[in-house]
């Protein structure tokens, strides 16, 4: 296998991580909504934590994206 095709396959594999992060982000918001409907009064106070969780989950997907971009353009 030559380098060019290996690069493209590698970038595609790295993109799986983005999908995994999508599961994570969905989990964060889904769990928040689930509990916010049970106790709407407490929901507003937890919005900061919601976005911290979102940021942490999203960051890992973005790192996977950065890896894919590095493989495609920088290696």
């Amino acid at each position: 296998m030559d380098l060019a095709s290996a690069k493209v396959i590698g970038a595609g594999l790295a993109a799986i991580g983005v999908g995994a992060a999508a599961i994570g982000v969905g989990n964060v918001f889904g769990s928040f909504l689930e509990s916010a409907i049970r106790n709407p009064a407490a929901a507003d106070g937890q919005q900061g934590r919601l976005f911290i969780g979102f940021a942490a989950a999203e960051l890992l997907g973005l790192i996977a994206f950065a890896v894919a971009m590095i493989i495609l353009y920088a290696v």
Partner: protein
Amino acid sequence: MAAESKIDPMHQFQISPLAGDLDGSPFVFTNSALWMLVVLALIWLFMLGGMKRQLVPGRWQVAVEGITGFVNSMVTSSIGPEGRKYMPWVFTVFMFILFANLLGMMPFALVGAQPFTVTSQFTVTGIMAIISFSIVLLVGFWKHGFRFFSLFIPHGTPKVLLPLIFLIELLSFMVRPFSLALRLFVAMIAGHILVEVFASFVVSGINAGGVGGPAVSLLSFVFIVGVMALEVLVCAIQAYVFALLTSLYINDAVNLH
């Protein structure tokens, strides 16, 4: 056979000199600098229009007061009453990122200007993250001296695990500026590349002709509209997350835990 349209999605992030030479002098006025100045001017105009302190606020003043009130409540709820001291930096970061992100979404290419997203450069976001991190370090060591290191030891850690926990906490503390900068920069890059790649599908779909080509173009166009709406949301969320995390990190330094 239609001509192969090759669109380079990374071209939009290129920094090009507007005055001076990139190789020659160390001070060059680039398109990045120009767009930063535009962002600054917009923020200035926005704040100037809303700071009239009328008793009955107009729409503009309500908008400005809404943003300042929002950042203020974020800072005071995460740092406490002492948080007002750090309000200027958090507000600066929030406004700069929000305006730079939204300005990067504007279709300036329609009027012939080359659009540029300031926050898609790792140097810009990196500097903001480093300043946030420096504030944390300075405030932490200024207020608590060497007790600041107790930040790395959670309460009730067993003695045996102490060195390991300390190392892990230290590591997670040290990657903070990196993650802060990387999140914003990659989120902006990813959105712009996605839009540009699908925009190139629109062009090559029309060029391909037949029945399938325009269908692909139409699908891509609808997709772009959706992604654009999502991107506007991401612009605001990224500004919010950067400001929120900055104030949380400052909270660590002010109150330890």
